[in-house]
């Protein structure tokens, strides 16, 4: 076959492919994706990809492996590729991350090539996949977008060591290389601007979403029977969900327990794990309140959903919170919320309308908020009905994926005028 004919054939094939494929193709990089769940990025990328696929975006997700999960699968029209992420021994977590990026980049490069380069944008979630996104951006000359879910300077309340500074600078590098940086709250937009000195027009706010249907799905569960596993019928349930670490303010919650118990007969249920679990359960024992506080550890999605549905109040006492998805989940599950007035929580909750806001890092204020909700049933009902409506209006994944798609399109329009196109 002579060369001209070959080129013509390829050109025709290319045009035909353009007609049948979806209008946009994105490759997402994330270090966690279900069934691998470490924090909030995993459910975020899962729901975002799923709803994007419904909105005619072809989505490839490249992520780390997980025991029992296949290397390649199609999940609700999303193509998921899991790479061998524990191939290389590593002296510490950050070095593991960079080595994992080396392997992910190698696999993703081969994948993009096998697709004939037909990927329109790369989308990286947090510094954990900074290297793979940045490298492939330059190698394939395609635009890169980044979602910054959280920052090192925020997580640690400042930068205190070379290790933390290295991560901070990697985050800065990712935002520098990204065409647009997506954050999930106005608070995060200004925090990221401040932390990395970014121009205003580089940042886009798209809220995180919550899947409200998941709380109506298991309606046949007998909630009052389920409830008995955690509390006596006369006890109110005060629920905390989150990693048991400093920034989540779990110590503030535990210190509020005796103050609430003075006025209300309640059971405090703490869901999650973390390095503060042991010291805090000792503290609870020394307070003589061990019979009023339950540490459940990590629970499965169904148990969590049911707990959120039967809780009399859900408490989010975080000191630093980029978004606060647990507050949103509680609102979707029709549980009243008490949150600390900080970060993304300040925007999700409207005080006295969709929840109660209290002073961060203040057990007295937190106890006041919890007590107020538990003692006034009409007030609690009003809050949870308003909150449920608000969630459906503003935090719907379908709407969020359309906003994200619009950002991709705007970036591609600018890109088409660049010399890379």
């Amino acid at each position, binding site marked *: 076959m002579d060369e001209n004919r070959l080129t013509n054939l390829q050109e025709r094939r290319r045009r035909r492919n353009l007609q049948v494929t979806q209008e946009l193709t994105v490759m997402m990089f994330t270090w966690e994706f279900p069934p691998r769940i470490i924090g909030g990025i995993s459910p975020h990328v899962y729901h975002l990809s799923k709803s994007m696929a419904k909105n005619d975006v072809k989505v490839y997700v490249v992520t780390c492996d997980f025991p029992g999960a296949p290397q390649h699968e199609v999940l609700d029209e999303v193509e998921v590729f899991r790479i061998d992420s524990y191939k290389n021994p590593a002296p510490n977590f950050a*070095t593991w991350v*960079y*080595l994992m990026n080396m392997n992910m980049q*190698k696999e993703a490069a081969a994948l993009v*090539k096998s697709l004939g380069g037909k990927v329109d944008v790369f989308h990286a979630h947090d510094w954990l996949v900074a*290297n793979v996104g*940045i*490298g492939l951006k330059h190698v394939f*000359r395609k635009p890169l977008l980044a979602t910054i879910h959280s920052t090192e300077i925020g997580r640690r309340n400042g930068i205190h060591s*070379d290790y933390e500074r290295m991560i901070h600078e990697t985050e800065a590098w990712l935002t520098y290389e990204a065409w647009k940086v997506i954050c999930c709250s106005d608070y995060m937009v200004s925090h990221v601007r401040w932390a990395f000195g970014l121009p205003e027009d580089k940042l886009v706010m798209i809220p995180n979403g919550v899947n409200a249907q998941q709380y109506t799905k298991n309606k046949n569960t007998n909630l009052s029977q389920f409830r008995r596993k955690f509390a006596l019928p006369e006890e109110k349930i005060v629920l905390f969900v989150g990693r048991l670490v400093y920034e989540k303010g779990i110590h503030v919650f535990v210190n509020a327990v005796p103050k609430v118990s003075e006025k209300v007969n309640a059971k405090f249920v703490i869901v999650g794990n973390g390095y503060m679990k042991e010291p805090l359960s000792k503290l609870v024992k020394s307070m003589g309140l061990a019979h009023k506080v339950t540490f459940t550890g990590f629970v499965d999605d169904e148990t969590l959903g049911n707990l959120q549905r039967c809780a009399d109040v859900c408490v989010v006492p975080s000191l630093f919170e980029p978004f606060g998805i647990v507050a949103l989940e509680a609102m979707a599950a029709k549980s009243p919320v008490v949150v600390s007035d900080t970060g993304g929580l300040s925007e999700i909750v409207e005080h006295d309308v969709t929840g109660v806001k209290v002073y961060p890092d203040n057990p007295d204020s937190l106890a006041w908020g919890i007590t107020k909700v538990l003692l006034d049933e009409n007030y609690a009902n009003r809050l949870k009905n308003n909150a449920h409506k608000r969630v459906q209006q503003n935090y719907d994944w379908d709407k969020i994926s359309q906003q994200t798609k619009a950002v991709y399109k705007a970036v591609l329009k600018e890109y088409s005028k660049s010399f890379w196109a």
Partner: protein
Amino acid sequence: MQVIIFSWEFPPRIVGELANYVKSLAVQLVKSNVETHVVTYHDYLTGPREEPEGTKTHRITNPVRTHIGVLTWVLTLNQEVERTAANIYYDAKKQTDLIDAHDWHFIPAAVTLKKALNIPFIYSVESLEEHRSHGANSPFNMAIKSIEWLGLYEAKKAIVKSEWMRDEATRIYKVPTDKIKVIPPKSTAWMKTVLQTYKSVAGGAISK
């Protein structure tokens, strides 16, 4: 023929023996009509420039300034190597024939460029972690060894400077002997053999 050389040291940045070796290699390649680009690290002499002997050097710096060790430093530097090499490749209308990566530092970039853009690479072994670390097997040493293994596995050919090193690479990483070419630097046939090896590898390049 167009070649991109990766080396973490190049004059005036001299860490060990490799810097001057790579310089003489680049100069001799230019004399043999090979378009030679050197991608290397330098903290402040950054950017592309023409050197007097006709080689083109591209000095890059690390976008992440603070590090906890040579491994993290190397692994973030690799994306800058990729960026620079990709720019050379696109500027050359995708006619880059091969990459010659010296030692393990920029192996991750060479592997990505091979997978993404079909540019084959040679791994030129100056030394191996097994000998540098005197048998130490901490996770740090093992991580470097895993990168050396990856390089030898993905490379089209490996060049070593002595028969002893060939035997060591075979012993440690189980590389087939015929994948390794022994080219002693001081030998009379040095440049001729280097060029022959380059040509045998460049044959695999597909210009798109």
